[in-house]
């Protein structure tokens, strides 16, 4: 195995691994500061913050000969017997110099900068910079101009790492951003009338190591140190990007992509990034209601409602359920189990799959799916596991309309209108209609039970994306008072003890369904690939 020496510590790397100095130092637990280098972008080695000393150990004699100058670690490949020194006086001096240079014209307007608190310029300056300022310039300007609808540029805060420029060239292929002027007058800009307007534009804000690129949606809305970060999964489309949900006091302020080499690398699309707004919509349904004998809806509290709902379901006759692709795997499982427990012949079908447009694939392979739900694969697998014969949700509706089914449970969670008047009309033939949804819809208006649902960041569970990768997540914010997450309701109705625990349910699922067997083990942050076991299962049977 190739051995690399970092600050005297020997690190073994894989025989075919191509790592640079920054990556190999990270393995040794050494942080090499850097601005321009990003694992997802090409190497330009221009910020010069990652300067280190390097050399080579003679494999025969063990003697180490060092280069007489500093080199950028991002551009220096780590091969067998490469030596890196990241803590010498030369390296410290070089870092201090770069930090001093970057602050010569930086406005240092941290008190009014959104990035303060998560800014690499701040962090690195604190760690590697000089204590006093020697530059005699007065950099107090803070020019701002918008790059597009989503991103704004604070010109003077920029350190010219060009990550954003490379992103639009290499990842989206749209190349809106560029560098104008020369030398110390350089600025990031767009061509007139060609704003930054691609569907992944928000990523440049994440890429910006300083406060130069600001997210217009998030701008001035929250200091970053007030927010708590939760690992989540984007529910915007079938790609299922790993995200961080950042919230303060149950209010989500922004979503950020979470690195996941199997799903979204370092990126997410704007649709997902800004697609959390519905969760705080004032139009959300927040109270459970039951249609009374007088034809009026009366509010009920969940504890009494659970009992009456159970009784109504048992009385209803033949049951059917539309299992929404917005439900988590665990919720879908519990819902199916509940239906079959009450009526062993209950019809189960996957609810409508929202499809908008067609898949969009970017040059680097990142895809925005037309299927605007996070869990079609998972819900399909659960429903297929319960069903002996396939039936679509339209078949179920027909059965409802012709009177073969008396009780229908419709789970929703859709962001968009999913139900038209004709559908609602068919559904209304049922004697018992339970609709569980975020927003009112034609079906909601004719329901016997109107049950508010929880949004994607308000529940525990797992989603299975289009590539059969199961990712588990925990709740990030508490649902508004009055809303009981679906899983909790099903758990209660099934008469289980204690609080709803999605992991317990997932264990059951993994045991019961071979498709989910890979989820038997604890699910890592990047998720598990269910396809592997599926193939193994097929081979075994």
């Amino acid at each position, binding site marked *: 195995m190739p051995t690399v020496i970092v600050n005297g510590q020997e690190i073994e790397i894989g025989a075919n691994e191509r790592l640079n100095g920054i990556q190999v130092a990270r393995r040794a637990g050494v942080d090499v500061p850097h601005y321009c280098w990003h694992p997802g972008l090409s*190497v*330009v*080695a*221009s*910020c*010069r*913050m990652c*300067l280190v000393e390097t050399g080579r150990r003679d494999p025969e004699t063990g003697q180490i000969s060092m*280069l007489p*100058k*500093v*080199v950028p670690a991002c*551009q220096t490949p780590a091969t067998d017997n490469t030596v890196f020194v990241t803590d010498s006086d030369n390296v410290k*001096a*070089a870092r201090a*110099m*770069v930090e001093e*240079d*970057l602050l*010569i*014209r930086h406005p240092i*307007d941290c008190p*009014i900068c959104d990035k303060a608190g998560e800014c690499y310029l701040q962090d690195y300056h604190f760690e590697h910079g000089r204590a*006093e*300022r*020697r*530059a*005699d*310039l*007065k950099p*107090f*300007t*803070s*020019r*701002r101009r918008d790059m597009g609808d989503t991103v704004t540029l*604070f010109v003077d805060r920029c*350190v*010219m790492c060009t990550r954003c420029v490379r992103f639009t060239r290499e990842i989206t292929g749209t190349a809106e951003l*560029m*560098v104008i*002027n*020369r*030398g*110390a*007058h*350089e600025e990031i800009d767009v061509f007139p009338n060609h704003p930054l307007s691609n569907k992944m534009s928000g990523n440049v804000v994440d890429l910006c190591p300083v406060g130069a690129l600001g997210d217009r949606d998030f701008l001035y809305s929250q200091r970053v140190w007030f927010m708590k970060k939760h690992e989540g999964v984007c529910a915007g489309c079938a790609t299922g990007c790993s995200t961080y949900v950042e919230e303060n006091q149950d209010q989500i302020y922004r979503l950020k992509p979470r690195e996941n080499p199997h799903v979204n690398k370092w990126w997410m699309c704007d649709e997902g990034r800004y697609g959390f707004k519905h969760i705080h919509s004032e139009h959300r349904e927040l109270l459970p209601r039951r249609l009374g004998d007088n034809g009026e809806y009366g509010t009920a509290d969940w504890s009494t409602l659970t009992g009456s709902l159970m009784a109504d379901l048992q009385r209803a006759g033949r049951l059917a359920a539309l299992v929404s692709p917005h439900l988590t795997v665990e919720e879908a499982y519990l819902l199916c189990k509940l239906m079959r427990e009450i009526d062993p012949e209950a019809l189960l079908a996957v609810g409508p799959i929202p499809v908008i447009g067609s898949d969009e694939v970017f040059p680097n392979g990142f895809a925005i799916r037309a299927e605007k739900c996070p869990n079609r694969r998972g819900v399909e697998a659960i429903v297929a596991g319960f069903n002996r014969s396939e039936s679509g949700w339209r078949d179920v509706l027909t059965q409802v309309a012709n009177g073969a089914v008396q009780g229908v449970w419709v789970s929703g969670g859709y962001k968009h209108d999913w139900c038209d008047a004709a559908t609602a009309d068919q559904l209304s033939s049922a004697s018992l209609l339970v609709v569980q949804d975020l927003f009112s819809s034609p079906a909601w208006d004719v329901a016997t039970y109107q049950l508010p649902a929880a949004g994607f960041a308000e529940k525990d569970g797992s989603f299975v994306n289009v590539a059969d990768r199961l990712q588990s997540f925990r709740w990030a914010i508490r649902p508004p008072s009055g809303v009981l997450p679906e899983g909790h309701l099903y758990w209660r109705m099934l008469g289980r003890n204690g609080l709803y625990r999605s992991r317990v349910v997932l264990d059951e699922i993994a045991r019961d369904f071979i498709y989910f067997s890979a989820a038997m083990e604890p699910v890592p942050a990047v998720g598990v690939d269910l396809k592997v076991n599926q193939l193994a299962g097929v081979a075994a049977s």
Partner: protein
Amino acid sequence: MAEYYEPVLLAQVGKPDSHTRAVYEQAGGYRALRKALTEMSPLDVIEEVKTSRLRGRGGAGFPTGLKWTFLPKDHPGPIYFCLNADESEPGTFNNRIIMEDDPHQMLEGLIISSYATRATTAYIYMRFEYPLAYRRMQAAIDECYAAGYLGKDILGSGYSLDIYIHRGAAAYICGEETGLIESLEGKRAWPRIKPPFPAVEGVFRKPTVVNNVETCACVTHIIARGAAWFQSIGVSPDPNNPRDAGSLGPKLYCLSGHIEKPGCYEAPLGITVQQLIDRFGGGIWKGRKAKAAIPGGISMGLLRADEFDCPLDFNGPSKYGCLGLGTAAVVVLDETVSIVDFLHNSARFFAHESCGQCTPCREGTSWALKILERIKVGRGRLVDLDLLLEIGDTIGIMPGTTICGLADGAAWPLKNAIRKFRDEFETYIRESNPGGYGDTTPVPSLSLQELTLLGSH
């Protein structure tokens, strides 16, 4: 060194219609091309150039033959040849003289060099500010196509070559090897990180050789007269130093500044600054004394008047603390010049021309300029000199903090001027800023009014 030297590169310059093919061929032109294409294989040409120990004339002095051998063997092609005619080092104009007055000499060398490197396309990256050179080069290329020296199957040898002139947009950085390549590709001239070197991955990601105009002109004569002739001129390698490649062959020296007869003169490598001034320049103008001289373009640093015995070969100037020979453009400053003004002007140039890619160069050059501006207007402090030296010592590829050598070029005038003329700087600062020259506080105090915070809302 021989007292009398017969010019070779400048032999035709100054004669009537020297830029036409007819005059050039009358003087024996295109015999070397015929010889190379009909009698020699590309490897023979490379071997001949290697034997001659020709070193690149663009500034860095890299052995030309060696550079050509770095091209990958058996590459399916295309291989590109780039001629660097983006001559923008202050004080330098020898390429212009060649391109304007003897373009065929250089074209012949370019075709031979392309043949040696098996390049099928050659680009001449020409500085925009050379309109006459552009017209004459283009006319010369047209003449070559008409005469069958360019195009398909040159002189029946089966070798084909096309030459295109690309005019730059007037940026110093485009003269840097990889900056030139980026610019030629239509991008911003940001020098590339090396490796890969252009010989492996250059223009359009294909193997590329980049050579200077004067280098190509030398190739013509090496083929015409043989490597032995070339080796007979100049300074032989130091036998005690195996790494010394020597400084052989003729060199065009650009002499300008405060001398009686500025111009481009040809001399064997190794002539000293004093000899240049006396033999060609006609002495310092107006009967004054010299104060300093730039040995080879402003980025090479500064020589004091008592260092004029510095030989202008590839090793000479570095022994006197300069960066190197550079473009061999000697600019002489007389005793009336203020070194503060000189350095300010130099810093202004490099701050303007820094491409802005690497942080130390982008910020260092502009910071140095700001400090010098302040010194110049009488608010200098003695500590500023150490700060300038620190900037000078820490930017460039030599300390390893930048991608290309522009920062080294910016650093050398700084370091040389302050180290060699520190007394003058100190006197200037003391006299112009009597109240504050000794101030050592890191930040000059700012008044409250100056601290206006322009809000970003």
